[in-house]
């Protein structure tokens, strides 16, 4: 199950105060979250558990860099993103990884959608181009190049449409809460 930002943050701050049980609860709750995060950004499956474990170790050893007054998920995804980039660099694979802000929007979007909203109804509120770009790249799993070819528009047009569309959706989802 998914845990809320408030819940994760409460465990994290309790862990920073030395509460080992809260720290364990946090790490356990993060495992499915991290698996999803890496699975959506990697091709094969074989490295995902390694990455999850490396990230758990990083979260543990670098927990002093979390500032109790800041959002926890932003910190978490920044650590996970760094581990992913470092992992790909070691494999000498070059894959563009989005910025943390974009990750937060996507992950928040998926969380909100899977938990309580009908995707098609949401997408119908966007322009046709944005809806198609998001459906292709985030639901059908096409690459940006494939989506651009299919829709007969430029790659940067796809990226911009996805970005704007997700932002609009994120704003609307936040409005629904």
């Amino acid at each position, binding site marked *: 199950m998914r845990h809320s930002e408030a819940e994760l943050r409460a465990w994290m701050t309790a862990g*920073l105060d*030395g509460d080992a049980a809260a720290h*364990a609860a946090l790490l356990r709750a993060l495992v499915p979250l991290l698996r999803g995060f890496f699975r959506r950004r990697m091709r094969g499956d074989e490295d995902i558990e390694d990455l999850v474990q490396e990230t758990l170790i990083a979260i543990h050893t670098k927990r*002093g860099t979390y500032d109790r007054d800041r959002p926890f998920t932003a910190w978490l995804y*920044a650590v996970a993103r760094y581990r992913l980039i470092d992992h790909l660099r070691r494999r000498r694979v070059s894959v563009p990884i989005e910025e943390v802000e974009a990750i937060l929007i996507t992950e928040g979007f998926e969380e909100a959608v899977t938990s309580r909203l009908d995707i098609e109804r949401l997408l119908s509120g966007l322009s046709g181009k944005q809806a198609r770009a998001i459906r292709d790249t985030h639901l059908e799993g096409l690459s940006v190049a494939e989506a651009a070819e299919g829709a007969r528009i430029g790659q940067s047009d796809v990226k911009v449409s996805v970005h704007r569309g997700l932002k609009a959706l994120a704003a609307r989802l936040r409005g629904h809460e």
Partner: protein
Amino acid sequence: MMAQDPDTSSTERLIAALSADVPPIPPRFIGRRIALGIAGGGVVSIGLVFALFGMRPDFPQAMFGFSFWMKWAYTLSLGLIAVAATVRLARPEGGSLRMLWPLALPILLLAALAIEEMIRTPMRDWLSMWLGGSWNRCPWRVLLLAVPIFLGLLWSFRKLAPTNLRAAGAAAGLAAGAWAATIYCLHCDEFAAVFVLTWYSLGILLATGLGALLGPRVLRW
């Protein structure tokens, strides 16, 4: 209960092992850690000044002079701004070097002082004022004194999590350079603003460049 696959149970074992050691973390951990690293390196740099260059002979009187405090105000303000940027870049969410823009204030103030000084000085003395007696040694000495402080910062970063390694390296180099320049003031008896603006800044800039160059290698985690 469902049978667990080996990956899942090894992750579970890892979590148990990590949770066995959960020391409390004091608030403002990053700032403390960076301050401690700079202080540790700074003690070594002060030792180097005494051992290699010696304290300026007129140090007690100089403490009451304008030029000593002008130099310290310049290097200390650069040092504080650099530390603020380093603290920020030590977090995984990071930040950009754009947060160094307040550096413009001390630099412009010192430049204004330098211009004012030159207006008061006959033009034939400008060159000797600019070069002082140590222009060719000053930047290198600042760079040398920055090395222990940079090493202290590397120790700090072992528990920190920079993700923009080049920017974090540059900020750490800048901090090391600015604090090294502050320490070098214990020896250096140059007094012209235009000297400080050029040669001190050059030494600090060298340290910044070296930090940016080394950052991606030495700050990886």
